[in-house]
């Protein structure tokens, strides 16, 4: 076993007695890796002849949608595939083939030469063990470090991950840390033995964008400091743009395009890559119609003889389905698995069906919220006890409850035919707001008017009219349909209940199913027989079945792959135009919200900090929080500006300051104690653009980062 030479030194940067890898030399070479799983449904081919090289000190992004096999690559390299997997090919890490290593030797590599960070920080740490102990373990097992020394290094590693109080974190249990902190601890653990290769499997997918941005920055810095090589697995092209040097695009287990990031993202060659990029709504982009990839994922039990993407490709011709495609170099280092990629044009655009005027403020808004406030009480362990006399005899201890205002004083108007986007991170209260205005959240204070009629705190019996005219589209396609009911019957039930769209006959329902873009014959299916996108369409059809005027869309696309997300967004837009619907569209993704909405409200800790036209919110003047969000949001365009000294929030959990500005405690541009003590004034700009901030309007306009802001502002406001 190799040993650590200067293990006892106090330096955090210690040198291993090991083969030194020069920058630029090939560290990992994956050759012809094929993988199949045996399942009840038959043998599924997950990877087919995957090859790529990873050079020392570089970051390779492995990109693909769900089912592309990207995570299987990581598990294969780590030797963590289940017993039902059969693996072929080679993966040489500095000359050692990892795929043919017997388990006893593979164990030696894991954690010491290769570190890995998994997607979900909340379940990856052992809940019963102190964080520091879990990070220190590999040092003890791989190098025989004594526990004290290992713990010292652990604290140093936590500090290197930007933890403010590493000693305290080391002795904490996982549940005491926030998600971002847990993920940092996991990265520290993966790096503790100073591995040459770090594999990151969707490490930021479960986190908020602002936390994600900081983790990505940290990773980049760590890589530069240590000459580390990273294999970064993700579905998010924006994240790829931020972190990767090279990109390898996987589709259905095949590498379909590989090359330097600027080339693959800036000048995508394979139709699939182009389609992916065309499906993405872009921040601050012109409002274009996004163009989804038609069709669905192929059945991986039998691979087609021709191109795997042929049946979804708009450029496909007869030769594509008959000849097997092989990777072909377009230029040095940029290869594509398409024989005609030079001759195909741009991804076909989808024409917008007609245009419509932007709705203007009127006296008859469809919905109005006045001073809406919804408070939850939660029992806090350790919060204190009061003794209450119950039933006149027994003194019983009652835990003091902590009041949490999920929605903390919101005034909003929604015009008929308008789409109002609400954007915010987890804990911002955006979902609570959506449910409260639909009278689903129990009693609240403030007032809600629907069609100028007061519906505040009515009983269920008095709400019949509201129940038919308002509907909701949900986030999770797997949970939004009753698994024991045929989808047609679910829609028919909603129709019959209010009897407005049709009588709920089979024809009525099938007409509606067709309207949301599904073929005939879906009436008798159960939800488990549908894909995620299809379930979401049925969810939309069910919402339309009561004949609504107003729909709350609560993160309707966040559970979907990029290409499916695009089709759903287009559908929602079409329905709005056609049926004159109004939406409150809730999402954590500023680009998606900005793409679809007429107006956008930015929420933080239960309050709206900024509201305005979609283009106004994405351009200065900004509320500091909006600015942080925009800075953090990953953008897939290689040309996107990357600023040094980005604005960053302090801490990574929502903290509330009831008296002053909601964002005061974390604001990077806080101007003084006034922020915490006094509620911020509303600064109004052109066209109803409003920002709640103590910073003077002039200073807000003079946002230091965007010198061209004046020009943007004038061109955007109408």
């Amino acid at each position, binding site marked *: 076993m190799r040993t650590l030479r200067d293990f006892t030194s106090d330096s955090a940067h210690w040198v291993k007695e090991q083969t030194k890898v020069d920058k630029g030399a090939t560290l990992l070479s994956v050759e012809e890796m094929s993988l199949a799983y045996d399942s009840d449904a038959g043998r599924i081919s997950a990877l087919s002849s995957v090859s790529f090289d990873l050079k020392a000190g570089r970051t390779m992004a492995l990109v693909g949608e769900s089912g592309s096999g990207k995570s299987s690559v990581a598990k294969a390299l780590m030797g963590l595939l289940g017993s039902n997997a059969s693996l072929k090919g080679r993966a040489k890490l500095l000359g050692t083939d990892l795929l043919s290593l017997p388990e006893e030797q593979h164990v030696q590599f894991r954690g010491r030469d290769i570190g890995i960070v998994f997607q979900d920080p909340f379940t990856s740490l052992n809940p019963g063990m102190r964080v520091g102990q879990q990070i220190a373990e590999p040092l003890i097992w791989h190098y025989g470090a004594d526990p004290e020394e290992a713990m010292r290094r652990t604290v140093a590693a936590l500090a290197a991950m930007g933890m403010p109080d590493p000693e305290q974190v080391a002795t904490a249990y996982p549940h005491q840390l926030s998600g971002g902190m847990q993920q940092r601890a996991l990265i520290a653990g993966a790096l503790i033995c100073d591995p040459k290769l770090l594999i990151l499997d969707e490490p930021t997918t479960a986190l908020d964008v602002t936390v994600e941005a900081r983790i990505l920055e940290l990773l980049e810095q760590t890589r530069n400091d240590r000459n580390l090589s990273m294999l970064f697995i993700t579905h998010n092209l924006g994240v790829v743009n931020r972190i990767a040097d090279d990109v390898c695009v996987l589709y259905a287990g095949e590498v379909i395009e590989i090359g330097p990031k600027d080339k693959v993202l800036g000048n995508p060659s394979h139709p699939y890559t182009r389609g992916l990029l065309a499906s993405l709504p872009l921040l601050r982009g012109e409002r274009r119609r996004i163009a989804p990839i038609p069709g669905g994922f192929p059945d991986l039990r039998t691979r087609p003889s021709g191109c795997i993407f042929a049946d979804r490709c708009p450029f496909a011709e007869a030769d594509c389905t008959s000849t097997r495609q092989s990777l072909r170099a377009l230029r040095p280092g940029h290869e594509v698995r398409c024989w005609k990629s030079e001759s195909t044009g741009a991804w076909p655009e989808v024409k917008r069906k007609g245009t419509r005027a932007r709705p203007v403020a009127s006296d008859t808004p469809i919905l109005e919220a006045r001073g809406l406030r919804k408070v939850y009480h939660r029992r806090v362990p350790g919060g204190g006890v009061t003794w209450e006399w119950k039933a006149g005899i027994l003194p019983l201890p009652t835990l003091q409850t902590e009041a949490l205002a999920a929605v903390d004083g919101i005034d909003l108007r929604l015009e008929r035919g308008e789409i109002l986007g609400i954007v915010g991170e987890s804990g911002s209260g955006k979902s609570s707001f959506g449910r409260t205005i*639909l009278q*689903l959240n129990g009693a609240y204070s403030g007032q809600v008017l629907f069609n100028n009629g007061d519906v505040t705190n009515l009983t*269920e019996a008095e709400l019949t009219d509201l*129940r*038919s005219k308002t509907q909701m589209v*949900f986030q999770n396609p797997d949970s939004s349909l*009753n698994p024991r009911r045929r989808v047609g019957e679910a829609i028919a039930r909603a129709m019959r209940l209010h009897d407005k769209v049709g009588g709920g006959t089979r024809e009525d329902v099938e007409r509606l199913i067709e309207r949301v873009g599904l073929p005939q014959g879906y009436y008798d299916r159960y939800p488990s027989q549908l894909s995620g996108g299809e379930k979401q369409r049925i969810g939309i059809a069910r919402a339309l079945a009561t004949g609504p005027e107003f729909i709350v869309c609560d993160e309707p696309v966040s559970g979907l792959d990029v290409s499916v997300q695009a089709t759903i967004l287009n559908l929602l837009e079409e329905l709005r135009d056609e049926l004159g619907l109004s939406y409150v569209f809730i999402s954590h993704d500023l680009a998606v919200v900005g793409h679809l909405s007429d107006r956008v409200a930015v929420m933080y800790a239960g309050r709206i900090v900024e509201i305005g036209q979609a283009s106004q919110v994405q351009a200065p003047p900004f509320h500091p929080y909006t600015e942080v969000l925009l800075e953090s949001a990953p953008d897939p365009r290689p040309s996107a500006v990357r600023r040094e000294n980005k604005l960053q929030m302090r801490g990574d959990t929502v903290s509330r300051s009831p008296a002053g500005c909601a964002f005061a405690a974390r604001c990077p541009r806080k101007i003084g104690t006034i922020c915490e003590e006094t509620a911020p004034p509303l600064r109004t700009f052109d066209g109803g653009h409003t920002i709640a901030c103590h910073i003077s309007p002039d200073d807000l306009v003079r946002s230091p980062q965007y010198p061209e802001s004046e020009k943007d502002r004038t061109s955007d406001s109408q």
Partner: protein
Amino acid sequence: MLGVLIALSLLAPFIIPYDPVALDITSRLQPPSTAHWLGTDEYGRDVLSRILMGGKLSLGLGFAATAVSLLLGVPLGLWAGYRGGRYEELILRGCDVLMSFPPIMLGLLILAVTPPAMWKLIIAVGIVYVPATVRLTRAVTLEIVSEEFILAARVRGERNSYILLKEILPNAMAPIVVEASLRVTFAILLGAALSFIGLGAQPPSSDWGLMISEARPLLDSAPWIALAPGFAMGLTVIAVNLLGDGLRATFDPKLRRHN
């Protein structure tokens, strides 16, 4: 296998070779033979016939008691899980109290106050398993209530009764049925134990627990009288257990943790 056992029990009155309660002094305590496959007891009653008839009692008790616990427990559990608040608190505290008695004790307490009878045994055993049923139903209901399709039903203005019966119950049934099938075996065992200590079925009934109890003094001379019903019971319970495991595997592999 369970099918065969149930069939045998149901058909018992028609296929048994001898009257299970007829006394025959001339053939007392005979070891197993071709005439009496499992021998006879001290009153000359045919053991095989008694076991077959006992099977009906045991299985009947198991299923009936489970039905009692479902009838009481499922509605309470649904209500507690769906409404929450005071109702939930009240129902759960009630369960706590019932669960604070060891299972047999609760049966004892109920049976101790009145002379034993079969229907009381069924109700007693059923009540013993009500708290467990309530808790399971409530846990499953809580999980389903958090699903978005329940919210969807509320958004379109469905009544509570519709949501409970049409949206929640069909989805809660699978785990409840699986659990109930295992409950049947516990009920059979508990019923037998109560009969064994003399608080369940009364002579001359051919309940298995009672048969074993009655055969104890004769263990030296005629062990088959005690062993046969024991084996019969083991066989039955294993069959029901296998059925339960099968149901569990079909319905929900995640269910393991509810047990």
